[in-house]
């Protein structure tokens, strides 16, 4: 069997084009990968503020994968285990849709859903208060993140975050997170 029958880059590219996926990365989310994604998002045609919001959301998703994915690989360069996952940006006429996917331990699913629901239910003012209150709270033991990612995603996008959980294996679920960002700046 030829290589081409095993995997068609052309079909894959057509699929990406059909879904209007402008950026997709699958693998270990090392610091270098983040920097590269950051650079490529600079070329977003909309305003700089929108480009920065997209970038901010992608970075928060990527860093969640880096730290919390339940599938890890050792990175020689970083000298530690780094989370594996996928991040993609698609678009329709009025929005960018940023989606991330990674494995998480099953027991972590309910608290994440609960947190997302709580944050989605807050008004912009309450959300701002909650962000500042959480930022003042002490750093969580053993967790490198700031516990602000979900809040920041909702604030930056102006839209709720969506969570989807898929079966993966006995101990882990596949965690899918999506956020929609308006192309037009609204205030």
């Amino acid at each position: 069997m030829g290589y081409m029958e095993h995997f068609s880059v052309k079909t894959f590219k057509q699929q990406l084009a059909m879904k209007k996926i402008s950026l997709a990365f699958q693998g270990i989310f090392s610091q270098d990968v983040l920097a590269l994604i950051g650079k490529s998002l600079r070329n977003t045609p909309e305003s700089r503020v929108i480009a920065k919001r997209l970038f901010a959301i992608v970075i928060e998703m990527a860093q969640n994968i880096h730290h919390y994915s339940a599938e890890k690989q050792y990175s020689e360069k970083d000298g530690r285990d780094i989370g594996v996952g996928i991040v993609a940006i698609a678009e329709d006429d009025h929005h960018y849709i940023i989606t991330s996917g990674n494995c998480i331990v099953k027991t972590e699913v309910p608290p994440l859903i609960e947190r997302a629901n709580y944050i989605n239910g807050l008004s912009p003012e309450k959300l701002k208060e909650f962000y500042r209150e959480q930022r003042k709270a002490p750093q969580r033991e053993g967790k490198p993140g700031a516990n602000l990612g979900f809040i920041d995603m909702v604030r930056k996008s102006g839209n709720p975050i969506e969570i989807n959980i898929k079966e993966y294996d006995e101990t882990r679920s596949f965690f899918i997170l999506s956020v929609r960002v308006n192309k037009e700046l609204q205030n």
Partner: protein
Amino acid sequence: MENFHIDGSTYIPRIDFNAETGVLEIEGESYHEYTTEFFGPIFSWLEDYLEESGKEITMNFKMSYFNTSSSRRFLEILTLLEEYQNNKEGKVVVNWYYEENDVDMLESGEEYADDVELTFNLLPY
């Protein structure tokens, strides 16, 4: 006391803390994966620097992007400076620069200004 300097790169900001002039600057982008590690030496330097009372300090933030984890570290820096002003006869001015039209960066500055009791200037560039 020695000055403190870190060259900026894609994901770490340029840090320039001048012990003689009291001008402390953070500029660029900040999205290191492990901000506690990256900011560790910065806090050590600051703690030494703030030992002696009565200093006049200008803290300049000129960020184009920072992640949520860096945003925590910035609040910790500002809180240190606030304590210094309150307890050690320090005089601290914070200049928060934001790119003109960057409404999000302006809002971040406004929030920090509300979080700490320091003279806070919000300056477009």
